[in-house]
């Protein structure tokens, strides 16, 4: 999906208001900067593409993140603010219900979420008001 036509300002506001807190809660006190950053992005749509890839792809050694609160909100935000995004998601969305008890939060998961915090941070920095 090409994120160039999204409402970036609305996505940024949603991130700052809710998604960021979800990510911090997932980190459960672990500092995002204790992990090396291995993923980067250059501009708004590039950042959103990387954020989507990392949010919804399950790295080895980490329970699928797609069912976490931040992932559910990210998907809902993209569906709302990015024209046509929902259509691209209909075939590969499993029934994503939030699990009550989070499965194991391995170091691998924390590392992946710390990459997301880096990417979202970069996305926010690209949006400034003159």
């Amino acid at each position, binding site marked *: 999906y090409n994120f160039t036509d999204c409402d970036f300002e609305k996505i940024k506001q949603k991130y700052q208001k809710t998604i960021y807190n979800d990510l911090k809660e997932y980190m459960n006190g672990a500092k995002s*900067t204790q992990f090396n950053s291995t993923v980067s992005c250059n501009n708004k749509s590039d950042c959103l593409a990387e954020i989507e890839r990392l949010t919804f792809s399950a790295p080895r050694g980490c329970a699928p993140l797609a069912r976490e609160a931040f992932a559910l909100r990210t998907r809902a935000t993209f569906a709302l603010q990015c024209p046509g995004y929902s259509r691209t998601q209909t075939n590969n969305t499993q029934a994503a219900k939030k699990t009550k008890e989070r499965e194991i939060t391995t170091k691998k998961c924390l590392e992946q979420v710390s990459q997301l915090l880096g990417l979202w941070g*970069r996305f926010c920095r690209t949006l400034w008001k003159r």
Partner: protein
Amino acid sequence: GTGEALQVHIICFNFETVRVTWNVSEPSGENLTFFYTFDSGEAYGQCTHYILRRGLTAGCILDFQDQVLHFSIRNATHALFTHSQWASFYLKPGAPRNLSFQWQQEKVAVTCPGLAHGGLLYEVQLRSNFDAAWQSKEEETCNVHIEGLDAEKCYCLRARVKTTEAAYGPDSYPGDWSEVSCWYGGLPSDLCPDVPISPGFPRFILICS
């Protein structure tokens, strides 16, 4: 980063330069070298602007890029410290420049050229000569309006830029304060006449007749 023996300190000055410093390795007195890249796909290059302390390399100053900074500090045989992190995560914004103040009866608008980066907060602090503490207001742009002022009072103001954790992570720094500027009746004043205020000090009013 890996290789914790070396204490490394990183600070990114106002999106202009990044300064990485380390504790000089005594007594071995080894000259350490600094290699870095902002593009994980490219080979590391060596620092071109070292900081020296007692004749030994103690840091490197490099131009800022809003990218992940990958670096490694090495001695003659191996890497002592390697790290990869967004350079912006160590940001310390500069003090706001070219502040302008527009006064209108009981309000003031403080503006300045904003920085070309999002996720920042512009904080203005104001204090009259009757106040013991600063009063703060912040906005996402450098256009801060403060109302409810007393045209008869003298006010001093200062401003700074702050980072938000959502955009700059937990290790960034607030910027330095601008110089304090004072105003009386909407006109610049060198300073505000001191009216000693010590909160909690009882005030007695003596009435003679």
